[in-house]
């Protein structure tokens, strides 16, 4: 039988899924708090500081507030799709976490447990598929609310995500040419040697393009046109209230965290600890502690990307729509193509021992 899976494996994966989902929810929760704190610091304010010491209970208070608000479903909306929209947004946001290697492996109950839910050999394409699904939540939700401005926001989101997906894909092709594999685990393992074997050294331009596209895919400033409140009242979630609105806003933070995680594993060595011989150190302190250190390092790197997302949001104003499209189609795609060609030429030269 093909799919006869032993019980221990199911339990192990189930536990891993629960941990990954819970921790991404928790991190997204505190990302909302961090966003407000970062904004406050940049604008010389104090930020939220009332709920709990230093305001660290603020996300809980926000969540409770959203839950207790009145649910409003517009009369002329199609109700099923109206509810499906935010659900899809949350679902697709969470799904990326399945292929990200959060650490090497831990050893419990005589079993080596890899800290990755699924090591499939099309890992990065899976991420891509999920990202391209992400637009449905916004589109369905915006259409179902039967509001012109919502629809405009949804259409903006769709066209923006499709346009930037192209440049993202081409910049990834150049990266995949250097790694020679699509599996995220193998890509991370190739970068374990030292900090100069990280892919950012080999593909700086590719990383820059990927970063810009990641901003656009997450609908973050300067690409937050789908929710430009001064043009569209509120954007694609104008008609939403209560926790359904909360899901849309929350999905953005989960997307941010998971795209940071993808960037870390693709370009910044994943769980590799710089300036440290990981294998030798692991023998000294044991595999399990090393895995904890690795996961901590991974989260630290992801957190610095989250900070970058926030930093940009509170520094750079929003693009105009034509500027957005020009940047996507006329700057990023040609740049990504050139990057791909140059990378290909380099690889050919290298295989030919640097002779033409």
């Amino acid at each position, binding site marked *: *039988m093909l799919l*006869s899976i032993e019980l221990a494996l199911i339990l192990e994966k189930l536990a891993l899924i629960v941990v990954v989902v819970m921790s991404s929810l928790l991190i997204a929760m505190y990302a909302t708090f961090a966003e407000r704190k970062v904004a406050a610091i940049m604008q010389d304010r104090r930020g939220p500081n009332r709920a709990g010491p230093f305001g660290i209970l603020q996300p809980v208070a926000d969540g409770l507030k959203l839950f207790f608000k009145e649910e409003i479903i517009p009369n002329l909306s199609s109700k099923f799709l109206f509810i499906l929209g935010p659900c899809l947004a949350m679902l697709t946001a969470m799904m990326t976490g399945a292929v990200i290697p959060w650490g090497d492996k831990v050893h419990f109950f005589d079993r080596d447990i890899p800290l990755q839910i699924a090591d499939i*050999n099309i890992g990065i394409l899976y991420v891509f598929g999920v990202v391209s699904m992400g637009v449905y939540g916004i*589109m369905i939700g915006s259409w179902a609310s039967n509001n012109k401005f919502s629809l405009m926001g949804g259409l903006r989101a769709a*066209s923006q995500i499709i346009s930037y997906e192209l440049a993202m894909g081409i910049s990834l092709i150049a990266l995949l040419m250097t790694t020679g594999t699509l599996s995220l685990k193998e890509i991370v393992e190739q970068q374990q040697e030292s900090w100069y074997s990280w892919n950012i050294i080999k593909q700086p331009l590719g990383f820059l393009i990927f970063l810009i596209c990641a901003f656009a895919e997450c609908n973050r400033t300067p690409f937050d046109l789908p929710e430009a409140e001064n043009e569209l009242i509120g954007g694609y979630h104008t008609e939403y209230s209560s926790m359904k609105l909360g899901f849309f806003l929350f999905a953005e933070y989960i997307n941010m965290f998971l795209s940071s995680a993808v960037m870390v594993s693709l370009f910044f060595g994943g769980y590799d600890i710089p300036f440290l011989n990981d294998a030798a150190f692991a023998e000294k302190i044991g595999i399990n502690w090393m895995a904890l250190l690795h996961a901590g390092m991974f989260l630290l790197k992801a957190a610095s990307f989250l900070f970058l997302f926030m930093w940009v949001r509170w520094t750079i104003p929003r693009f105009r729509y034509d500027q957005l499209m020009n940047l996507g189609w006329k700057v990023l795609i040609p740049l990504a193509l050139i990057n791909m060609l140059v990378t290909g030429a380099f690889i050919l030269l290298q295989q030919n021992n640097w002779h033409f």
Partner: protein
Amino acid sequence: MSITEILFWFLSVLAVGGAMLLVASKNPVHSILYLIITFFAVSGHYILLNAQFLAIVNIIVYAGAIMVLFLFVVMLMNLNADSEPPQKNRLLLYSGTIAGCCLLLVLVAALKQSSTTSQLVEMGGGDAGLIKNLGMALFSDYVFPFEISSVLFLSAMIGAVVISKKEA
């Protein structure tokens, strides 16, 4: 029944049911959503056949890009019962029914004739669908058709750009 068989039947019902609802549903947006379900079910079948690359490309290209564009256009045109009154032309209805029956006849005849249908596809076996083998095959044995189809795509793309330029 093994898990594979259960999955196969589940996905088949999903695919066929989605396709039926796609044709039957009155609202074009709902039709598109049913079509997306069908694409997912078909991708599931590809995974059962161990063709992971095909499965994920099916999702990225068809479900992720083309269907979004379909949705985009339908939403922009705001098609509904008011703008598209139900078909009243009797002649069209009859001719459509007859044409559909003819297609069904041809399909059934073709399925009866072919001998391979009685053989079940080997599930989960083989690694021809894995990305490495697929890439090797595409760029060695099938490199000429591959390049030809890429030229076709390029010309289609240029054609689209030219058409949109004329309008402006």
